[in-house]
């Protein structure tokens, strides 16, 4: 294992300290925790948004703490959900009487830990609501699984619910718009090379020289199948087919697109992928209102990418285009 670290035990702490050192005007650390909040958070008089999860997905989620997006982010160990006490500290450090919305990616551990934190805050009469993002179409949604995983579509929830909260909306209204995003967002990912969790020291899965894994999650957990690597356009077509088969996106619809790098894929390749995305959507008469290309929800140094589509209505499009100012997402 070759990594730019000082030791496997202080990866999360040093990453957070480095982040705060880089962006003190945006984020501060809640002392004694792995929580980052907006600098001077308690001065905001609005519904607060808290998200988080295992580390290793940077800039998610600390990079999205700032005006127009999150109020607090909780960093667990690498690929491991943060614990309830940490999430509770994030709520306590930011909430100012209007309630808190927890934005949770659909993994068993994340849901349990965030729910317990919500119960702890509820015991102290803090109003807490939660939404669970489950956008990954690679995983079948049925009563026989835990449900779909939450992946890059989560960033659209942060952006749009964050803009709604910034307008002064109530907790119920912010939650409702977050649910609307969740209902209209779908994603699918793939990997070219696996990633290595520092504390484990070896890759989470193996791929032959000419092999890729389709349907990969953001923790290096195995995808739906492996296949021989083909041209980028064929890979994109296959992933879009699965997303479009959801039946959400039709001719004339306006959508936002995210072509998200998993951490180890050059931007040039993400743009090559986006070229095919834009062609396919144009052929189908689906109107691309906004495109994001870059590393938004990564998986350590995994090479690969995901595609996310969000169907927009007037409300979602206006909120998506509203200003945001965070370390990793800036929009004037």
């Amino acid at each position, binding site marked *: 294992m070759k990594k730019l670290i000082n030791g496997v035990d202080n990866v999360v702490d040093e990453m957070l300290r480095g982040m705060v050192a880089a962006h003190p005007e945006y984020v501060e650390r809640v002392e004694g925790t792995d929580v980052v909040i907006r600098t001077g958070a308690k001065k905001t008089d609005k519904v607060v948004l808290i998200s988080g999860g*295992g580390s290793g997905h940077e800039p998610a989620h600390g990079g999205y703490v700032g005006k127009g997006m999150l109020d607090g982010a909780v960093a*667990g*160990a690498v*690929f*491991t*959900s*943060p*614990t*309830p*006490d*940490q999430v509770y500290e994030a709520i306590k450090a930011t909430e100012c009487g209007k309630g808190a919305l927890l934005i949770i990616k659909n*993994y*068993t*551990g994340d849901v*349990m*830990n965030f729910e*317990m934190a919500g119960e702890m805050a509820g015991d102290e009469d803090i109003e807490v609501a939660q939404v669970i993002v489950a956008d990954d179409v690679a*995983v*079948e949604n049925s009563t*026989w*699984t*835990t449900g779909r*995983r939450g992946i890059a579509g989560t960033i659209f929830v942060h952006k749009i619910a964050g803009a709604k909260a910034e307008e002064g909306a109530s907790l119920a209204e912010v939650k409702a718009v977050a649910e609307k995003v969740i209902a209209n967002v779908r994603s699918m990912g793939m990997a070219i090379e696996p990633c290595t*969790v520092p*504390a*484990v020291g070896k890759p*989470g899965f193996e791929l032959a020289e000419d092999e890729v894994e389709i349907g990969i*999650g953001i*923790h*290096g*957990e*195995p995808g739906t199948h492996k296949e021989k690597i083909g041209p980028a356009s064929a890979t994109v077509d296959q992933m879009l087919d699965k997303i479009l088969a959801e039946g959400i996106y039709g001719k004339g619809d306006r959508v936002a697109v995210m072509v998200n790098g998993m951490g180890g894929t050059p931007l040039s390749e993400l743009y090559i992928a986006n070229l095919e995305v834009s062609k396919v959507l144009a052929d189908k008469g689906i109107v691309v209102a906004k495109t994001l290309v870059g590393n938004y929800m990564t998986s350590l140094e995994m090479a690969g990418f995901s595609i996310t589509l969000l169907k927009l209505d007037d409300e979602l499009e206006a909120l998506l285009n509203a200003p945001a100012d965070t370390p990793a997402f800036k929009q004037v």
Partner: protein
Amino acid sequence: MSSKIYDCIEMIGNRIIENKDFLTELDREIGDADHGINMARGFTEVLAILPKDSDNIGDLLKKTGMTLLSKVGGASGPLYGTAYMQAGKVCAGKTALTAQDGKAVFEAVIAGIQKRGKAVKGEKTMLDAIIPAFEAYSAAVDSGASVNDALDAMCKAAEEGVEYTKTIIATKGRASYLGERSIGHQDPGATSATYTMQAVRDFIKG
């Protein structure tokens, strides 16, 4: 001198810590490769903070649960944290346990895990070791078997439960995303739960 309950929790913790790499390897196959690492981190902290001389069983179990809850993370933290805290409630104020108390502990642990994890038997989870172990233990105690025999029956059922998890598809937790590809792999949570029960048996039998 340390108390018996401390020594028992220490034996559980050491068993988990000794098997850290194996548990992580099992999780790498069908999950996210952190079960052993997370559980070992949790128990290292538990053994560091538990008062060694206290013989208050309920108190030590509760402290163990709260520490696991705040140190383990993932799904294991809330599940094992809840299990130990529920066991602690049943044992509140006690300094010794009878074979019947053992049944009450099991019942509370299973109820707590089911409430938190929303799982039932047969979903390739820790419950596939714990529920059969409880049934075997209860049957043995109720039929008048010795404590040692009841503990042996408990462990045998738990070990068979781990083997059973190899034959079924996961429908809870991260392994559920694999569908049929989860067959052939034993569940890491059922495995760590079995280590726990084996350590308790080995401690009591001496």
